[in-house]
């Protein structure tokens, strides 16, 4: 199932990629390429392709907790909506509280319902400026840190661990590389959601009180502010809507008659109904100010935050750890060069080790066979064999370019010679083939004697390497012949 929510898909994709780390790479290649081919049309949109992959990939391997996180995200949004409405409603009711004894001070109302909004809006703008201005970084980081939207993260602690842990991916420092911009805009979205609902709450309360009671506004301040200056200030504040709603701009006369001093409260207390009607004319100005400096900007900041959050979330999908690799597997041809089936490997029976003569010298009269044309000179070979206690009865040839019939003839001659032993000189660098093992077994079978057979490894100009000797030993052990010996001619390298 694909979540309609990006956030849910992000969480599920992250879980899938984490779980995929242990999946065999060949299996991943095949699975992802086949999904990638089905999603070829979305190749230019990595986020959409990844979401499509999530839809088609097997669900068995990982837990899809995205929907829990989405639920929590929505619950947190609803809480913020109600909190904003309640606090806006509450504050507006408090500010516009009017018993008829004293009018509502418009300065007070502006100071609490409008000016902080302008200030907070400026802070928000400061915080979102791209971080390229020197010395601004610290201020921005402080502003972001103080963003009330971050408190939602703490609010999430009240909810079940499964949902909380899933959603916490968005602010988990492990993913700062991919998700930092999205996190920033999520907190911005949450704070703007609260602020927007706060303004709705203020407006609802204002309309309720305007509709169901009579309100009288006036203005009062200790500061040395005359009516003309105050009017100028209000005109400046009303500039954005002065052409659209001219009635919502306080007139100089209204400003003039609305000033009051608490010492003169008696005069307001005894004011006639005409003055009461005049004093109530302030409400269009107040409501317009709240709409212009609170509601509309917050609607815009909410929309911008939501768009940027979604944008960065979609942008983060292809940057999650493992996503680039997944996209590469989906969009690159599936190349396979390896064998589809496992290899049958021969099990080598290593048999027994070869024994050396007890005396350290063979003391044997042997027939010597040169196998496969080693190129060893018969005289010098005989001389070297002497050092091993082997005296050469005859020097014969076998293997190589000779035919198998000639080899058999050599064996017949050998048997007729009845030597005490047989020495076979071989090239140490060439591994023993089965035809060589055939030859040794034929000697045993035809001569019908348990005489020692000594394999003499000759290494040519490079000498006998340890690896070559080991190869010969391992192979000849398969014959399980106790009278078979291996010796190296010359020094072993």
């Amino acid at each position: 199932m694909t979540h309609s929510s990006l956030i849910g898909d992000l969480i599920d994709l992250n879980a899938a990629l984490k779980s995929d780390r242990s999946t065999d790479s060949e299996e991943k290649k095949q699975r992802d390429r086949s999904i990638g081919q089905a999603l070829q049309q979305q190749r230019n949109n990595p986020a959409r392709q990844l979401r499509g992959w999530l839809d088609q990939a097997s669900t068995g391997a990982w837990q899809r907790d995205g929907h829990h996180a989405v639920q929590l995200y929505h619950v947190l949004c609803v809480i913020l909506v109600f909190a904003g409405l309640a606090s806006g409603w509450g504050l507006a009711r408090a500010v516009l509280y009017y018993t008829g004894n004293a009018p509502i001070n418009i300065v007070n109302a502006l100071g609490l319902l409008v000016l902080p909004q302008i200030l907070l809006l400026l802070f928000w703008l400061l915080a979102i400026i791209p971080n390229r201005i020197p010395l601004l970084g610290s201020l921005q980081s402080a502003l972001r840190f103080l963003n009330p939207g971050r408190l939602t993260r703490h609010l999430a602690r009240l909810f079940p661990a499964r949902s909380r842990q899933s959603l916490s991916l968005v602010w988990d420092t492990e993913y700062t590389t991919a998700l930092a911009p999205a996190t920033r805009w999520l907190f911005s979205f949450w704070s703007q959601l609260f602020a927007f609902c706060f303004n709705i709450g203020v407006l609802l309360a204002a309309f309720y009180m305007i509709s169901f009671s009579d309100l009288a506004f006036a203005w009062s301040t200790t500061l040395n502010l005359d009516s003309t200056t105050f009017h100028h200030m209000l005109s400046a504040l009303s500039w954005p809507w002065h052409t659209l709603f001219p009635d919502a701009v306080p007139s100089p006369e209204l400003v003039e008659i609305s000033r009051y001093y608490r010492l003169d409260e008696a005069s307001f207390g005894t004011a006639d109904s005409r003055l009461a009607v005049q004093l109530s004319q302030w409400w269009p100005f107040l409501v317009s100010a709240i709409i212009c400096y609170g509601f509309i900007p917050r609607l815009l900041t909410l929309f911008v935050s939501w768009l940027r959050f979604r944008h960065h979330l979609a942008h983060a999908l292809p940057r999650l750890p493992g996503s680039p690799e997944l996209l590469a597997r989906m969009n690159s041809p599936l190349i396979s060069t390896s064998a589809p089936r496992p290899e049958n490997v021969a099990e080598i029976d290593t048999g027994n080790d070869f024994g050396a003569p007890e005396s350290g010298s063979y003391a044997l009269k042997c027939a010597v066979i040169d196998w496969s044309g080693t190129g060893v000179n018969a005289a010098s070979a005989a001389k070297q064999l002497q050092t091993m206690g082997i005296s050469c009865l005859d020097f014969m040839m076998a293997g190589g370019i000779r035919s198998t019939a000639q080899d058999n003839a050599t064996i017949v001659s050998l048997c007729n010679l009845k030597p005490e032993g047989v020495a076979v000189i071989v090239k140490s660098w060439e591994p023993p083939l089965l035809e060589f093992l055939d030859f040794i077994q034929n000697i045993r079978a035809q001569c019908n004697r348990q005489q020692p057979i000594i394999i003499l490894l000759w290494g040519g100009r490079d000498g006998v390497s340890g690896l070559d000797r080991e190869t010969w030993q391992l192979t000849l052990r398969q014959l399980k012949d106790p009278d078979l010996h291996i010796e190296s001619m010359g020094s072993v390298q």
Partner: protein
Amino acid sequence: MTTPLFAIVGHPNKGKSSIVSTLAQDESVAISPIPGTTVDNRYYPMQVDGETLYALVDTPGFQRARAALEWMQKQPGSSVDRANIVRMFVEEHHDDHRFAAECSLLTPILDGAGILYVIDGSRPFGEEYEAEMEILRWTGQPSLALINMIGDSDYSEEWNNALGQYFRIVRIFDAMTADFDRRIQLLLAFGQIREEWRESLEKAVQVLQQEQQRRRKLSARMMAETISRMVSYTCQRRLKGDGAGNAVRDSLQQAYKRELTSMEQQCRNEVEQIYNHKHLERHEAHVQLLAEDLFAEQTWVLFGLTQQQLITTGALGGAATGGIIDLAVGGASLFLGAGIGAMIGGVSAWVTTDRIADIKILGLPLGGKQLSIGPMRNINFPYVVLGRALYHHSMIEDRTHAHRAPLELKQPPAWLQTLDTDRRKQLEKIFVKLRRQETPHSDLVDALADRIQQLMERPASQTTKTPS
């Protein structure tokens, strides 16, 4: 058009399986000094999205070539019948265990496979090879001889003379050390043995080159990700009491180092996976922390705001308060209120942070001291990490799958120091931003990955390698 099929044949222990392992990039191929390890034909198709562009067949080595040839020579017929005689041999002996190896290796050839005859050029030529070369000639299939240099000695000239009598094309190829370009050259040479196979092999080469680029790109991204994490990594520990003792500092430094090592090792493993080296044993010295005092002791206050942030916030609050006064006097104060307010707010925050940190609410202090380590400020650190990563990558990229010895990573070459000024500046710019953590990481990772990929494509002459 038939799919090109190549049978790798020859004497046992001459590196047939090594060549297959290198060309197929498959480390599962059994390579052993014991002759006869390969007992059966094994196919290695090169497939692209299911389409086979060519296939290699690893075969057992000849075991009784003389006897087989003698049987064939005894059969009546002229030289035009030789291929049929070989076929008769296989048909007649396919159940004969004595000729199991010969029948196995001749079967794909008789089915149309080209012959890749492998010998070891570091060992002398011998007369025992003549029977098997003769049998291969009898099959009449197109062939190529590969001189595989297993050891240090060189008998290639001797072999060239001998092989030239049986094979039209002879190539020298070291299955253990052949880099990507050499492998590609060999594949193109395969196309020379039969014209109709050339197109398929050229396509295969093109796909492999694209795959190589893709691997580089993924590796570069992996390396960029790791370097950015390593450079910007910080580790904090809250302190009890007034300051940090040596034990706490040591333990934090160890934890910091462990994490950096783990990040680097993870990157190495991922890069090896990208190049299909799944079971590679690697020996490498851990990255050394460069001589630098990494520690910064700082005060944290008000739920984690740093002192600097707190001062800025104080100044901002002061400016806002002062601004109200400016507003009240209609700007007649020339914004002195905001200025003075900012100053008072900032100084107050600076003076009082320590005191605020000591305030406890419900027994929990609002702030306190923490010991912080990182990010690594030494300007050489990212270059060291990058140099090590590039060195490892170059070793892995050129390492064949026949090479089974552990990978020994020694001191990487110092070619990063010879980078031209522009490239060095570009890298330095990214590293500075990473340390400052100003720009979103993902953008920096992208930029760094691009630079790394460019560095990977430096000419081979500049990437001097230390032999492993």
